[in-house]
Protein backbone atom coordinates (compact mmCIF):
# COMPACT_ATOMS: atom_id res chain seq x y z
CA UNK A 1 0.00 0.00 0.00
CA UNK A 2 1.28 3.43 -0.93
CA UNK A 3 2.16 6.07 1.60
CA UNK A 4 -0.71 8.21 0.32
CA UNK A 5 -3.07 5.29 0.80
CA UNK A 6 -1.91 4.80 4.36
CA UNK A 7 -2.28 8.52 4.99
CA UNK A 8 -5.86 8.39 3.77
CA UNK A 9 -6.50 5.44 6.06
CA UNK A 10 -4.93 7.21 9.00
CA UNK A 11 -6.97 10.32 8.25
CA UNK A 12 -10.16 8.32 8.00
CA UNK A 13 -9.48 6.60 11.28
CA UNK A 14 -8.87 9.97 12.87
CA UNK A 15 -12.13 11.32 11.53
CA UNK A 16 -13.98 8.31 12.88
CA UNK A 17 -12.34 8.76 16.25
CA UNK A 18 -13.33 12.41 16.25
CA UNK A 19 -16.91 11.43 15.51
CA UNK A 20 -16.81 8.82 18.21
CA UNK A 21 -15.61 11.44 20.66
CA UNK A 22 -18.74 13.45 19.87
CA UNK A 23 -17.06 15.82 17.42
CA UNK A 24 -19.80 16.60 14.95
CA UNK A 25 -17.63 18.89 12.87
CA UNK A 26 -13.90 18.61 12.60
CA UNK A 27 -11.72 20.95 10.59
CA UNK A 28 -8.09 19.80 10.46
CA UNK A 29 -5.15 21.60 8.93
CA UNK A 30 -7.35 23.47 6.49
CA UNK A 31 -5.86 26.11 4.22
CA UNK A 32 -7.90 28.05 1.70
CA UNK A 33 -6.88 30.57 -0.91
CA UNK A 34 -8.44 33.31 -2.99
CA UNK A 35 -6.28 33.07 -6.09
CA UNK A 36 -2.80 33.03 -4.60
CA UNK A 37 -3.76 34.87 -1.41
CA UNK A 38 -4.03 32.61 1.61
CA UNK A 39 -7.20 33.30 3.57
CA UNK A 40 -6.90 30.35 5.96
CA UNK A 41 -3.67 28.70 7.09
CA UNK A 42 -3.67 25.29 8.78
CA UNK A 43 -6.85 25.93 10.70
CA UNK A 44 -7.99 23.35 13.27
CA UNK A 45 -11.46 23.72 14.70
CA UNK A 46 -13.78 21.19 16.28
CA UNK A 47 -17.41 21.39 17.24
CA UNK A 48 -18.86 18.70 19.48
CA UNK A 49 -22.46 17.55 19.59
CA UNK A 50 -24.59 19.91 21.68
CA UNK A 51 -21.94 22.62 21.95
CA UNK A 52 -21.93 26.30 21.10
CA UNK A 53 -18.52 27.06 19.68
CA UNK A 54 -17.55 30.54 18.61
CA UNK A 55 -14.87 31.91 16.34
CA UNK A 56 -13.92 35.51 16.94
CA UNK A 57 -11.53 37.73 15.08
CA UNK A 58 -11.08 41.08 13.43
CA UNK A 59 -12.42 42.11 10.06
CA UNK A 60 -10.68 40.17 7.32
CA UNK A 61 -9.22 37.56 9.65
CA UNK A 62 -10.83 34.81 7.59
CA UNK A 63 -13.89 34.05 9.71
CA UNK A 64 -16.39 34.11 6.86
CA UNK A 65 -13.94 32.26 4.63
CA UNK A 66 -13.91 29.40 7.11
CA UNK A 67 -17.72 29.34 7.06
CA UNK A 68 -17.67 29.19 3.29
CA UNK A 69 -14.90 26.59 3.17
CA UNK A 70 -16.92 24.30 5.43
CA UNK A 71 -19.60 24.55 2.72
CA UNK A 72 -17.10 23.71 -0.01
CA UNK A 73 -16.73 27.07 -1.77
CA UNK A 74 -13.87 27.93 -1.85
CA UNK A 75 -12.70 24.36 -1.31
CA UNK A 76 -9.93 23.73 1.15
CA UNK A 77 -6.62 23.41 -0.67
CA UNK A 78 -5.08 21.35 2.09
CA UNK A 79 -6.45 19.61 5.15
CA UNK A 80 -9.69 17.87 5.74
CA UNK A 81 -13.17 18.73 6.91
CA UNK A 82 -15.40 16.02 8.33
CA UNK A 83 -19.01 16.14 9.39
CA UNK A 84 -20.36 13.31 11.55
CA UNK A 85 -17.33 11.26 10.53
CA UNK A 86 -17.90 11.76 6.81
CA UNK A 87 -15.31 13.58 4.69
CA UNK A 88 -16.99 16.59 3.13
CA UNK A 89 -13.88 18.44 1.94
CA UNK A 90 -14.55 17.86 -1.75
CA UNK A 91 -18.35 17.74 -1.80
CA UNK A 92 -20.33 20.41 -3.68
CA UNK A 93 -22.14 22.98 -1.54
CA UNK A 94 -25.64 21.57 -1.97
CA UNK A 95 -24.52 18.06 -1.07
CA UNK A 96 -22.99 19.37 2.17
CA UNK A 97 -26.23 21.14 3.02
CA UNK A 98 -28.13 17.90 2.44
CA UNK A 99 -26.05 16.12 5.08
CA UNK A 100 -27.62 18.33 7.74
CA UNK A 101 -25.58 21.52 8.01
CA UNK A 102 -27.48 24.80 7.74
CA UNK A 103 -26.23 28.34 7.70
CA UNK A 104 -27.55 31.72 8.67
CA UNK A 105 -25.15 33.60 6.42
CA UNK A 106 -23.42 36.93 6.73
CA UNK A 107 -25.65 39.70 5.42
CA UNK A 108 -28.68 37.43 6.03
CA UNK A 109 -29.26 36.77 2.33
CA UNK A 110 -33.00 36.28 2.52
CA UNK A 111 -34.58 35.96 -0.93
CA UNK A 112 -35.80 39.55 -1.23
CA UNK A 113 -38.52 39.06 -3.83
CA UNK A 114 -40.10 36.08 -2.12
CA UNK A 115 -42.57 36.13 0.73
CA UNK A 116 -41.50 35.13 4.23
CA UNK A 117 -43.40 31.87 3.79
CA UNK A 118 -41.65 31.11 0.50
CA UNK A 119 -38.29 31.78 2.12
CA UNK A 120 -39.19 29.26 4.80
CA UNK A 121 -40.35 26.79 2.17
CA UNK A 122 -36.95 27.17 0.51
CA UNK A 123 -35.38 26.32 3.84
CA UNK A 124 -37.51 23.18 4.00
CA UNK A 125 -36.82 22.09 0.43
CA UNK A 126 -34.62 19.20 1.59
CA UNK A 127 -37.69 17.52 3.03
CA UNK A 128 -40.03 18.32 0.16
CA UNK A 129 -42.50 19.97 2.55
CA UNK A 130 -43.17 16.80 4.54
CA UNK A 131 -43.28 18.38 8.00
CA UNK A 132 -43.61 21.97 6.86
CA UNK A 133 -46.64 22.90 8.99
CA UNK A 134 -45.08 21.49 12.13
CA UNK A 135 -41.72 23.18 11.54
CA UNK A 136 -43.44 26.45 10.69
CA UNK A 137 -45.14 26.32 14.11
CA UNK A 138 -41.79 25.75 15.73
CA UNK A 139 -39.95 28.68 14.14
CA UNK A 140 -42.92 30.99 14.62
CA UNK A 141 -42.85 30.13 18.31
CA UNK A 142 -39.20 31.12 18.36
CA UNK A 143 -39.81 34.35 16.39
CA UNK A 144 -43.48 35.38 16.76
CA UNK A 145 -42.79 38.41 14.58
CA UNK A 146 -42.48 36.16 11.53
CA UNK A 147 -45.93 34.70 12.04
CA UNK A 148 -47.55 38.11 11.46
CA UNK A 149 -45.59 38.60 8.27
CA UNK A 150 -45.78 35.32 6.42
CA UNK A 151 -47.11 36.94 3.26
CA UNK A 152 -44.80 39.97 3.32
CA UNK A 153 -41.97 40.27 0.81
CA UNK A 154 -38.77 39.48 2.68
CA UNK A 155 -36.88 42.35 1.06
CA UNK A 156 -39.20 44.91 2.63
CA UNK A 157 -38.57 43.82 6.22
CA UNK A 158 -36.20 45.44 8.70
CA UNK A 159 -32.70 44.08 9.25
CA UNK A 160 -33.65 42.45 12.53
CA UNK A 161 -36.66 40.73 10.99
CA UNK A 162 -34.54 39.56 8.08
CA UNK A 163 -32.04 38.09 10.54
CA UNK A 164 -34.85 36.23 12.29
CA UNK A 165 -36.02 34.95 8.93
CA UNK A 166 -32.51 33.83 7.99
CA UNK A 167 -32.26 31.83 11.21
CA UNK A 168 -35.78 30.44 10.86
CA UNK A 169 -35.06 29.44 7.27
CA UNK A 170 -31.93 27.57 8.38
CA UNK A 171 -33.94 25.76 11.07
CA UNK A 172 -36.56 24.60 8.57
CA UNK A 173 -34.12 22.02 7.20
CA UNK A 174 -33.91 20.36 10.65
CA UNK A 175 -30.11 20.64 10.69
CA UNK A 176 -27.78 18.75 13.02
CA UNK A 177 -25.35 21.68 12.93
CA UNK A 178 -26.21 25.32 12.57
CA UNK A 179 -23.63 27.88 11.45
CA UNK A 180 -24.14 31.55 12.22
CA UNK A 181 -22.09 34.13 10.37
CA UNK A 182 -22.20 37.56 12.05
CA UNK A 183 -25.82 37.41 13.16
CA UNK A 184 -25.49 40.72 15.04
CA UNK A 185 -24.04 42.72 12.15
CA UNK A 186 -25.77 46.07 11.69
CA UNK A 187 -28.53 45.40 14.23
CA UNK A 188 -29.75 47.58 17.08
CA UNK A 189 -28.56 46.46 20.56
CA UNK A 190 -32.02 45.39 21.62
CA UNK A 191 -32.42 43.20 18.53
CA UNK A 192 -28.94 41.75 19.03
CA UNK A 193 -29.98 40.71 22.52
CA UNK A 194 -33.08 39.04 21.12
CA UNK A 195 -31.11 37.16 18.45
CA UNK A 196 -28.51 35.95 20.93
CA UNK A 197 -31.34 34.94 23.27
CA UNK A 198 -32.82 32.83 20.49
CA UNK A 199 -29.44 31.19 19.80
CA UNK A 200 -29.08 30.37 23.47
CA UNK A 201 -32.59 28.88 23.61
CA UNK A 202 -31.94 26.74 20.58
CA UNK A 203 -28.91 25.25 22.25
CA UNK A 204 -30.14 24.94 25.81
CA UNK A 205 -33.69 23.77 25.09
CA UNK A 206 -33.31 21.80 21.88
CA UNK A 207 -29.67 20.76 22.18
CA UNK A 208 -28.84 22.30 18.80
CA UNK A 209 -25.14 22.25 17.95
CA UNK A 210 -24.02 25.74 16.99
CA UNK A 211 -20.92 27.22 15.41
CA UNK A 212 -20.98 30.99 15.71
CA UNK A 213 -18.75 33.49 13.94
CA UNK A 214 -18.87 36.95 15.46
CA UNK A 215 -17.17 40.30 15.62
CA UNK A 216 -19.16 41.04 18.73
CA UNK A 217 -16.67 39.06 20.82
CA UNK A 218 -18.15 39.82 24.21
CA UNK A 219 -21.61 38.51 23.45
CA UNK A 220 -20.26 35.53 21.55
CA UNK A 221 -17.80 34.42 24.23
CA UNK A 222 -20.38 34.82 26.97
CA UNK A 223 -22.74 32.57 25.10
CA UNK A 224 -20.27 29.93 23.91
CA UNK A 225 -18.95 26.84 25.64
CA UNK A 226 -15.69 27.15 23.76
CA UNK A 227 -14.08 29.67 21.48
CA UNK A 228 -11.30 30.13 18.94
CA UNK A 229 -9.47 33.34 18.03
CA UNK A 230 -8.58 33.76 14.37
CA UNK A 231 -5.82 36.19 13.35
CA UNK A 232 -4.74 36.55 9.73
CA UNK A 233 -6.15 33.18 8.82
CA UNK A 234 -4.54 31.33 11.74
CA UNK A 235 -6.08 30.07 14.97
CA UNK A 236 -3.93 31.72 17.62
CA UNK A 237 -5.86 30.81 20.75
CA UNK A 238 -8.60 28.53 21.92
CA UNK A 239 -10.26 27.76 25.19
CA UNK A 240 -13.51 27.92 27.05
CA UNK A 241 -15.61 31.03 26.50
CA UNK A 242 -14.98 32.08 30.09
CA UNK A 243 -11.19 31.67 29.82
CA UNK A 244 -10.99 33.68 26.62
CA UNK A 245 -13.15 36.43 28.11
CA UNK A 246 -10.69 36.72 30.99
CA UNK A 247 -7.58 36.55 28.82
CA UNK A 248 -5.78 39.90 28.88
CA UNK A 249 -4.73 39.70 25.21
CA UNK A 250 -8.24 38.90 24.05
CA UNK A 251 -9.60 41.62 26.30
CA UNK A 252 -7.20 44.15 24.87
CA UNK A 253 -7.73 43.25 21.24
CA UNK A 254 -11.43 42.45 21.03
CA UNK A 255 -13.22 43.64 24.12
CA UNK A 256 -11.88 47.08 24.94
CA UNK A 257 -11.98 48.95 21.70
CA UNK A 258 -9.22 46.93 20.10
CA UNK A 259 -6.34 49.22 21.03
CA UNK A 260 -3.84 46.40 20.63
CA UNK A 261 -3.26 45.25 17.06
CA UNK A 262 -4.27 41.70 16.34
CA UNK A 263 -0.70 40.80 15.37
CA UNK A 264 0.46 41.63 18.89
CA UNK A 265 -1.55 38.71 20.17
CA UNK A 266 0.41 36.35 17.99
CA UNK A 267 3.61 37.64 19.51
CA UNK A 268 2.25 37.60 23.04
CA UNK A 269 1.16 33.99 22.68
CA UNK A 270 4.13 32.88 20.58
Amino acid at each position, binding site marked *: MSVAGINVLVEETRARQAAAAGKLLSVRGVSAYYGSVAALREVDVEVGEGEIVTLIGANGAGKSTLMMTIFGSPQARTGRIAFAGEDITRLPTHAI*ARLGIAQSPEGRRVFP*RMSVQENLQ*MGASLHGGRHFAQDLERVCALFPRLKERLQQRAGTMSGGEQQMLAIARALMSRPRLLLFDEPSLGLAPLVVKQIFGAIRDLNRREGMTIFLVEQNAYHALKLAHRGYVLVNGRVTMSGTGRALLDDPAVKAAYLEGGLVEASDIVEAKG
Partner: protein
Amino acid sequence: MDVFVQQLINGLTLGAIYGLIAIGYTMVFGIIGMVNFAHGDVFMVSTFIALIGFLILTTWLGVASVAVALLIVLIITMPLTALWGWAIERVAYRPLRGSFRLAPLISAIGVSIFLSNFVQVAQGARNKPTPPMLNGGFTLFERDGYAVTLSYKQCLIMIVTVLLLAGFWYLVQRTAFGRAQRACEQDRRMAALLGIDVDRTISLTFVLGAALAAVAGVLYLLYYGVVSFSDGFVPGVKAFTAAVLGGIGSLPGAVLGGLIIGLIETFWSAYFSIEYKDVAAFSILAIVLIFMPSGILGRAEVEKV
Protein backbone atom coordinates in the same frame (compact mmCIF):
# COMPACT_ATOMS: atom_id res chain seq x y z
CA MET B 1 -62.04 50.54 -37.40
CA ASP B 2 -62.39 47.27 -39.31
CA VAL B 3 -58.79 47.39 -40.44
CA PHE B 4 -57.75 48.24 -36.91
CA VAL B 5 -59.52 45.23 -35.39
CA GLN B 6 -58.13 42.93 -38.03
CA GLN B 7 -54.60 44.17 -37.45
CA LEU B 8 -55.08 43.86 -33.71
CA ILE B 9 -55.90 40.18 -34.15
CA ASN B 10 -52.94 39.64 -36.48
CA GLY B 11 -50.59 41.54 -34.17
CA LEU B 12 -51.61 39.64 -31.06
CA THR B 13 -51.08 36.32 -32.86
CA LEU B 14 -47.59 37.29 -33.94
CA GLY B 15 -46.91 38.75 -30.49
CA ALA B 16 -47.91 35.49 -28.81
CA ILE B 17 -45.23 33.67 -30.79
CA TYR B 18 -42.61 36.30 -29.93
CA GLY B 19 -43.64 36.17 -26.30
CA LEU B 20 -43.17 32.39 -26.10
CA ILE B 21 -39.64 32.72 -27.49
CA ALA B 22 -38.88 35.74 -25.30
CA ILE B 23 -39.52 33.75 -22.12
CA GLY B 24 -36.52 31.58 -22.94
CA TYR B 25 -34.28 34.64 -23.23
CA THR B 26 -35.57 36.25 -20.08
CA MET B 27 -35.41 33.14 -17.87
CA VAL B 28 -31.85 32.32 -18.87
CA PHE B 29 -30.79 35.91 -18.38
CA GLY B 30 -32.52 35.97 -15.00
CA ILE B 31 -30.71 32.91 -13.68
CA ILE B 32 -27.20 33.18 -15.11
CA GLY B 33 -27.09 36.74 -16.41
CA MET B 34 -26.20 35.81 -19.97
CA VAL B 35 -27.98 36.45 -23.24
CA ASN B 36 -28.40 33.09 -24.91
CA PHE B 37 -27.91 34.18 -28.51
CA ALA B 38 -28.47 30.61 -29.68
CA HIS B 39 -32.06 30.64 -28.44
CA GLY B 40 -33.44 31.93 -31.76
CA ASP B 41 -31.75 29.05 -33.53
CA VAL B 42 -33.12 26.56 -31.03
CA PHE B 43 -36.51 27.91 -32.05
CA MET B 44 -35.59 27.40 -35.71
CA VAL B 45 -34.48 23.81 -35.01
CA SER B 46 -37.86 23.20 -33.39
CA THR B 47 -39.68 24.35 -36.53
CA PHE B 48 -37.76 21.72 -38.49
CA ILE B 49 -38.45 19.01 -35.93
CA ALA B 50 -42.12 19.98 -36.15
CA LEU B 51 -42.08 19.98 -39.95
CA ILE B 52 -40.42 16.58 -40.19
CA GLY B 53 -42.73 15.19 -37.54
CA PHE B 54 -45.77 16.53 -39.32
CA LEU B 55 -44.73 15.09 -42.69
CA ILE B 56 -43.95 11.68 -41.20
CA LEU B 57 -47.30 11.59 -39.44
CA THR B 58 -49.42 12.71 -42.37
CA THR B 59 -47.73 11.08 -45.36
CA TRP B 60 -46.11 7.93 -43.95
CA LEU B 61 -48.27 7.04 -41.01
CA GLY B 62 -51.45 8.29 -42.64
CA VAL B 63 -52.81 10.36 -39.78
CA ALA B 64 -55.78 11.94 -41.47
CA SER B 65 -56.85 14.48 -38.87
CA VAL B 66 -54.73 17.63 -38.94
CA ALA B 67 -55.68 18.43 -35.36
CA VAL B 68 -54.46 15.05 -34.08
CA ALA B 69 -51.27 15.38 -36.13
CA LEU B 70 -50.60 18.85 -34.72
CA LEU B 71 -51.15 17.67 -31.18
CA ILE B 72 -48.74 14.76 -31.62
CA VAL B 73 -46.23 17.08 -33.29
CA LEU B 74 -46.44 19.47 -30.34
CA ILE B 75 -45.95 16.62 -27.87
CA ILE B 76 -42.85 15.27 -29.61
CA THR B 77 -41.31 18.61 -30.59
CA MET B 78 -41.23 19.94 -27.02
CA PRO B 79 -39.03 17.21 -25.48
CA LEU B 80 -36.81 16.91 -28.56
CA THR B 81 -36.13 20.66 -28.63
CA ALA B 82 -35.71 20.65 -24.85
CA LEU B 83 -33.02 18.03 -25.32
CA TRP B 84 -31.19 20.43 -27.64
CA GLY B 85 -31.48 23.20 -25.06
CA TRP B 86 -30.14 20.92 -22.36
CA ALA B 87 -27.23 19.69 -24.51
CA ILE B 88 -26.23 23.20 -25.55
CA GLU B 89 -26.05 24.38 -21.94
CA ARG B 90 -24.09 21.30 -20.99
CA VAL B 91 -21.57 21.49 -23.81
CA ALA B 92 -21.21 25.16 -24.56
CA TYR B 93 -22.07 27.15 -21.41
CA ARG B 94 -21.51 25.15 -18.26
CA PRO B 95 -17.77 24.61 -18.81
CA LEU B 96 -17.42 28.39 -19.14
CA ARG B 97 -19.26 29.25 -15.95
CA GLY B 98 -16.99 31.27 -13.71
CA SER B 99 -14.96 32.35 -16.71
CA PHE B 100 -14.89 35.98 -17.84
CA ARG B 101 -18.28 37.47 -18.64
CA LEU B 102 -17.96 37.55 -22.41
CA ALA B 103 -16.92 33.89 -22.73
CA PRO B 104 -20.38 32.30 -22.66
CA LEU B 105 -21.69 35.07 -24.90
CA ILE B 106 -19.11 34.27 -27.56
CA SER B 107 -19.85 30.60 -27.11
CA ALA B 108 -23.57 31.33 -27.62
CA ILE B 109 -22.89 33.10 -30.90
CA GLY B 110 -20.83 30.07 -31.92
CA VAL B 111 -23.70 27.72 -31.11
CA SER B 112 -26.05 29.96 -33.07
CA ILE B 113 -23.85 29.80 -36.17
CA PHE B 114 -23.40 26.06 -35.70
CA LEU B 115 -27.14 25.38 -35.49
CA SER B 116 -28.11 27.40 -38.55
CA ASN B 117 -25.31 25.89 -40.62
CA PHE B 118 -26.07 22.41 -39.37
CA VAL B 119 -29.69 22.73 -40.43
CA GLN B 120 -28.66 24.29 -43.75
CA VAL B 121 -26.40 21.34 -44.52
CA ALA B 122 -28.74 18.67 -43.20
CA GLN B 123 -31.99 20.06 -44.63
CA GLY B 124 -30.90 22.20 -47.54
CA ALA B 125 -30.93 25.94 -47.96
CA ARG B 126 -34.30 26.29 -49.67
CA ASN B 127 -37.53 27.23 -47.93
CA LYS B 128 -39.48 24.22 -46.76
CA PRO B 129 -43.23 24.53 -47.26
CA THR B 130 -45.86 22.49 -45.46
CA PRO B 131 -49.10 21.38 -47.02
CA PRO B 132 -51.80 23.90 -46.09
CA MET B 133 -53.58 23.04 -42.88
CA LEU B 134 -56.41 24.39 -40.77
CA ASN B 135 -57.74 26.77 -43.37
CA GLY B 136 -60.79 28.94 -42.85
CA GLY B 137 -62.00 30.86 -39.84
CA PHE B 138 -64.74 32.87 -38.25
CA THR B 139 -65.98 36.10 -39.82
CA LEU B 140 -66.41 38.43 -36.89
CA PHE B 141 -68.20 41.20 -38.77
CA GLU B 142 -68.32 42.64 -42.23
CA ARG B 143 -68.64 46.26 -43.34
CA ASP B 144 -68.32 47.88 -46.75
CA GLY B 145 -67.08 44.64 -48.18
CA TYR B 146 -64.22 44.34 -45.64
CA ALA B 147 -64.55 41.21 -43.54
CA VAL B 148 -62.79 41.04 -40.21
CA THR B 149 -61.83 37.42 -39.70
CA LEU B 150 -60.31 35.37 -36.97
CA SER B 151 -58.78 32.33 -38.63
CA TYR B 152 -58.77 28.92 -36.96
CA LYS B 153 -54.99 29.12 -36.90
CA GLN B 154 -55.05 32.38 -34.99
CA CYS B 155 -57.59 30.94 -32.61
CA LEU B 156 -55.45 27.89 -31.99
CA ILE B 157 -52.30 29.97 -31.51
CA MET B 158 -53.95 32.17 -28.93
CA ILE B 159 -55.57 29.30 -27.06
CA VAL B 160 -52.38 27.25 -26.94
CA THR B 161 -50.37 30.29 -25.84
CA VAL B 162 -52.76 31.23 -23.07
CA LEU B 163 -53.00 27.66 -21.77
CA LEU B 164 -49.25 27.18 -21.80
CA LEU B 165 -48.54 30.49 -20.15
CA ALA B 166 -51.05 29.66 -17.42
CA GLY B 167 -49.42 26.29 -16.85
CA PHE B 168 -45.98 27.81 -16.95
CA TRP B 169 -46.98 30.55 -14.52
CA TYR B 170 -48.28 27.90 -12.13
CA LEU B 171 -45.01 25.97 -12.42
CA VAL B 172 -42.87 29.00 -11.61
CA GLN B 173 -45.03 30.50 -8.89
CA ARG B 174 -46.50 27.51 -7.09
CA THR B 175 -44.26 24.46 -7.38
CA ALA B 176 -41.08 23.56 -5.54
CA PHE B 177 -39.12 23.59 -8.78
CA GLY B 178 -40.35 27.10 -9.61
CA ARG B 179 -39.42 28.26 -6.14
CA ALA B 180 -35.93 26.82 -6.49
CA GLN B 181 -35.65 28.46 -9.90
CA ARG B 182 -36.57 31.88 -8.51
CA ALA B 183 -34.28 31.36 -5.53
CA CYS B 184 -31.34 30.66 -7.84
CA GLU B 185 -32.25 33.79 -9.74
CA GLN B 186 -32.16 35.93 -6.60
CA ASP B 187 -29.14 34.39 -4.85
CA ARG B 188 -27.47 31.34 -6.34
CA ARG B 189 -25.04 30.77 -3.49
CA MET B 190 -27.76 30.96 -0.86
CA ALA B 191 -29.87 28.48 -2.82
CA ALA B 192 -26.92 26.07 -2.80
CA LEU B 193 -26.56 26.55 0.97
CA LEU B 194 -30.16 25.35 1.30
CA GLY B 195 -29.36 22.17 -0.61
CA ILE B 196 -30.56 23.25 -4.04
CA ASP B 197 -28.52 21.76 -6.88
CA VAL B 198 -27.91 24.98 -8.78
CA ASP B 199 -26.44 23.34 -11.90
CA ARG B 200 -29.47 21.13 -12.21
CA THR B 201 -31.81 24.08 -11.81
CA ILE B 202 -29.96 25.99 -14.53
CA SER B 203 -30.19 22.95 -16.81
CA LEU B 204 -33.92 22.75 -16.22
CA THR B 205 -34.26 26.43 -17.01
CA PHE B 206 -32.70 25.84 -20.42
CA VAL B 207 -34.96 22.84 -20.90
CA LEU B 208 -38.07 24.88 -20.10
CA GLY B 209 -37.02 27.79 -22.30
CA ALA B 210 -36.37 25.44 -25.21
CA ALA B 211 -39.69 23.65 -24.67
CA LEU B 212 -41.55 26.97 -24.89
CA ALA B 213 -39.55 27.92 -27.98
CA ALA B 214 -40.65 24.58 -29.43
CA VAL B 215 -44.28 25.52 -28.89
CA ALA B 216 -43.57 28.79 -30.66
CA GLY B 217 -41.89 26.79 -33.43
CA VAL B 218 -44.90 24.54 -33.98
CA LEU B 219 -47.23 27.56 -34.02
CA TYR B 220 -44.93 29.45 -36.37
CA LEU B 221 -44.90 26.53 -38.78
CA LEU B 222 -48.67 26.33 -38.60
CA TYR B 223 -49.11 30.06 -39.14
CA TYR B 224 -46.67 30.70 -41.97
CA GLY B 225 -46.57 27.25 -43.54
CA VAL B 226 -42.93 27.64 -44.52
CA VAL B 227 -39.64 27.43 -42.65
CA SER B 228 -36.00 28.00 -43.51
CA PHE B 229 -32.65 27.47 -41.80
CA SER B 230 -32.26 31.25 -41.46
CA ASP B 231 -35.56 31.65 -39.59
CA GLY B 232 -33.82 31.59 -36.25
CA PHE B 233 -32.26 34.98 -36.64
CA VAL B 234 -35.01 37.55 -37.18
CA PRO B 235 -37.66 36.03 -34.88
CA GLY B 236 -34.86 35.44 -32.37
CA VAL B 237 -33.74 39.05 -32.42
CA LYS B 238 -37.35 40.24 -32.24
CA ALA B 239 -38.04 38.01 -29.24
CA PHE B 240 -34.86 39.20 -27.57
CA THR B 241 -36.00 42.76 -28.22
CA ALA B 242 -39.35 41.84 -26.66
CA ALA B 243 -37.60 40.51 -23.57
CA VAL B 244 -35.54 43.68 -23.21
CA LEU B 245 -38.55 45.90 -23.87
CA GLY B 246 -40.62 44.11 -21.22
CA GLY B 247 -37.74 44.19 -18.76
CA ILE B 248 -35.24 41.38 -19.08
CA GLY B 249 -35.57 38.92 -16.23
CA SER B 250 -39.32 39.49 -15.90
CA LEU B 251 -41.63 36.74 -17.15
CA PRO B 252 -44.79 38.85 -17.56
CA GLY B 253 -42.50 41.46 -19.14
CA ALA B 254 -41.40 39.00 -21.81
CA VAL B 255 -44.98 38.23 -22.79
CA LEU B 256 -45.99 41.88 -22.71
CA GLY B 257 -42.93 42.86 -24.73
CA GLY B 258 -43.72 40.14 -27.27
CA LEU B 259 -47.27 41.38 -27.71
CA ILE B 260 -46.09 44.99 -28.08
CA ILE B 261 -43.46 44.11 -30.68
CA GLY B 262 -45.99 41.98 -32.57
CA LEU B 263 -48.54 44.82 -32.54
CA ILE B 264 -46.08 47.53 -33.58
CA GLU B 265 -44.85 45.42 -36.44
CA THR B 266 -48.31 44.57 -37.71
CA PHE B 267 -49.75 48.07 -37.38
CA TRP B 268 -46.75 49.66 -38.99
CA SER B 269 -47.02 47.26 -41.92
CA ALA B 270 -50.74 47.98 -42.30
CA TYR B 271 -50.72 51.76 -41.98
CA PHE B 272 -47.27 52.78 -43.18
CA SER B 273 -44.90 50.57 -45.06
CA ILE B 274 -44.09 46.92 -44.73
CA GLU B 275 -40.44 47.50 -45.60
CA TYR B 276 -39.84 49.53 -42.48
CA LYS B 277 -41.69 47.32 -39.97
CA ASP B 278 -38.45 46.14 -38.35
CA VAL B 279 -37.15 49.69 -38.16
CA ALA B 280 -40.34 50.66 -36.33
CA ALA B 281 -40.04 47.81 -33.83
CA PHE B 282 -36.43 48.56 -33.02
CA SER B 283 -36.99 52.33 -32.88
CA ILE B 284 -39.68 51.85 -30.25
CA LEU B 285 -37.23 49.69 -28.35
CA ALA B 286 -34.58 52.41 -28.49
CA ILE B 287 -37.01 55.07 -27.31
CA VAL B 288 -38.35 52.97 -24.44
CA LEU B 289 -34.85 52.12 -23.29
CA ILE B 290 -33.79 55.77 -23.27
CA PHE B 291 -36.58 56.64 -20.86
CA MET B 292 -36.91 53.28 -19.03
CA PRO B 293 -33.51 51.60 -19.14
CA SER B 294 -34.73 48.55 -17.23
CA GLY B 295 -37.72 47.96 -19.54
CA ILE B 296 -41.42 48.20 -18.84
CA LEU B 297 -41.73 45.67 -16.02
CA GLY B 298 -38.06 45.28 -15.18
CA ARG B 299 -36.50 46.09 -11.85
CA ALA B 300 -34.03 48.93 -11.64
CA GLU B 301 -30.79 47.04 -12.06
CA VAL B 302 -28.72 46.57 -8.94
CA GLU B 303 -25.36 45.03 -9.68
CA LYS B 304 -25.22 41.61 -8.03
CA VAL B 305 -22.36 41.27 -5.61
